[in-house]
């Protein structure tokens, strides 16, 4: 666990450092009285980031100096592969949903079908049903019944989704 805990804490410190740098101009209360209320835009994020950084440093030191469980974050390499197999398609679908690409309905249909058919290994007609029926139901309730528009595909001017 030690390297994982250390790395996580260090990443927080780095993020905080970037935020502190970005909002450094407003770090101190304004003494001149020209800024309304005395606090500038950067005051709040600067000090929030400072607390993250300080706490992150303490967490880093703790991770390095105190006893940690021997096992890692993952039991074996297979677990990492499994995680990637789950997260990568999910992120891909999120990206493909963008308007002008596949749009919400096609992307989510493919994903539902892929998951039921390939990952969960249902028979192909269940997978097909899942990939078609659910997007259609979403279309009916969102676009038609409640006029809430979801991102459309590159086919949009010709097809309604």
């Amino acid at each position: 666990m030690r390297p994982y805990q250390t790395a996580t804490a260090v990443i927080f410190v780095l993020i905080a450092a970037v935020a502190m740098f970005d909002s450094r101009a407003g770090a101190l209360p304004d003494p001149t009285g020209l800024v309304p209320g005395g606090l500038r835009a950067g005051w709040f994020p600067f000090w929030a980031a400072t607390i993250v950084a300080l706490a992150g440093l303490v967490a880093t030191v703790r991770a390095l100096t105190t006893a940690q469980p021997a096992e890692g974050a993952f039991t074996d390499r297979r677990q990492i592969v499994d995680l990637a197999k789950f997260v990568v398609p999910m992120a891909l679908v999120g990206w493909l949903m963008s308007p002008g690409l596949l749009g919400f309905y096609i992307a989510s249909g493919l994903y539902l079908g892929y998951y039921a058919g390939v990952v969960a290994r249902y028979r192909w007609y269940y997978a097909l049903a899942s990939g078609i029926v659910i997007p259609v139901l979403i279309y009916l309730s969102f676009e038609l019944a409640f006029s809430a528009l979801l991102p459309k595909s590159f086919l949009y001017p010709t097809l309604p989704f």
Partner: protein
Amino acid sequence: MDAFGSLLGGFGTALQPTNLVFLLAGVLLGLIIGVLPGLGGTSGVAILLPISVFIARDNSATTAIIFLAGIYWGALFGGVITSILFNIPGEPWAVALLFDGYPLARRRGKPGVALASSFVASWVGAFFATILLTFLAKTIADIALQFGPADLFAIFVLSFATLIGLGAESPIKAVMMVAFGLLLAAVGFDRITGEPRLTFGQVELLNGIGFVPVTIGLFGIGEVIAANEEAAIGAAGAIAAKVGLKDLLETLAALKQRFLLVAANGIIGFFFGSLPGHGATAGSFLGYGLARQWSKNKEEFGKGEISGIMAPQAAADASAVGAMVPLLSLGVPGSPTGAVLMAGLFIWGLVPGPLLFIQHPEFVWGFIASIYVGHFLTFLITLTAVPLLALIMRVPHGVLTPLIIIISVIGSYTLNNSMLDVAITIVAGVVGYWLRKMKYPLAPLVVAVVLGNATEVELRRALIGSSGQWTVFFTSPASAVFLAIAALLLAWPFIGKALQVRRVSAAPPAAAK
């Protein structure tokens, strides 16, 4: 005129067949809108606002408001369903329900009890709130107007104080998560100066990192990723959710034990809702925090404690009712949904405000009576639907897993029609999975993301009003009292420990972790 007599007249209006039919239609639509991801009470009412023009024209403005408000009540009940079953909050105030609702439904396999608890609490909370609305609207509105930025700031600090340490094994990690949440909340457009902060030149980021996409990611998607891993190593079996009358009896027994807590939260929530601008979210967090502080078994919170469902839900629904106070008595909306309802009044040709009571009493009292009727209807419908809803837990994982991800995506997109929010949700999902694994508490992070921006803005508004004098937080009595309670709550663990140490100083120290 005597309020009780007027209310009876109002019931006469609300129970007319046409109004009753529209109320029922509104409630049913609201329930569906609440369940659908991303469409909450506010957008639900807004979507049907143009249609209300016809209803007001063909029937009356009273029918129109009864219909629209019915959607609001329905959505309040419906919005908790995805929180409890999928760990996806439908509305800001349903966030507090994630902490215990989902664990009770999933980990303990009691979705029926979890759902029924929230419905019962909603109804009881709203009932007390509606009684207060009927008899004390004007008084409460006058008190609420006196609440300035300093007092609101103090209320937010108090909410934080009751929730600090929630789910935390390591205090340093909890502090880190709170501060990180405040930092995320600060991203985007600074509402006081209009300057962009931490946006790195990206216009999309001006809208900030919203807490809805963050929470949906951390809890909804993060949980799915973790479950996927557990399923792969065979740790988690599907829980067969058995639902029956037993669940209802268990819920009613739980309510009996917690009746005072639920009623108190109804009253607190009502008052919070009546403050112009804020309300339900802070109210539900404070309700949760207070329930936890008062509880004898604090450790159970976050693991499926029923008080952790009933308290925030009673407060949230009551504050929705409370939001009608400034709307009816002053013409000032108490919540975003209140603002949409008020837009409706303008469109139908009415002027929201005190003259309504005099010029259109049948409208005001018909509406108030419909709150009683609407909540009762919603309560009956949802309670009957509990077994049906709990069945959703039986959808096979090959469909349910991608469906939850898709629901999460819709939920985060629909709020602001923003693809950036979808990206934030997915990233937050992975981050949430990892932080959980690294034993970072997520609840403090979420609380800070939700309340961070409002806390900062009220702090700075108060300072502008006082020309930079920090004493403003102590010269206002309400602010001083709330801050003192907050300080006491924060210091209590240390005081408690000191007392304990003195008491057991003779005994050998407990084994360290």
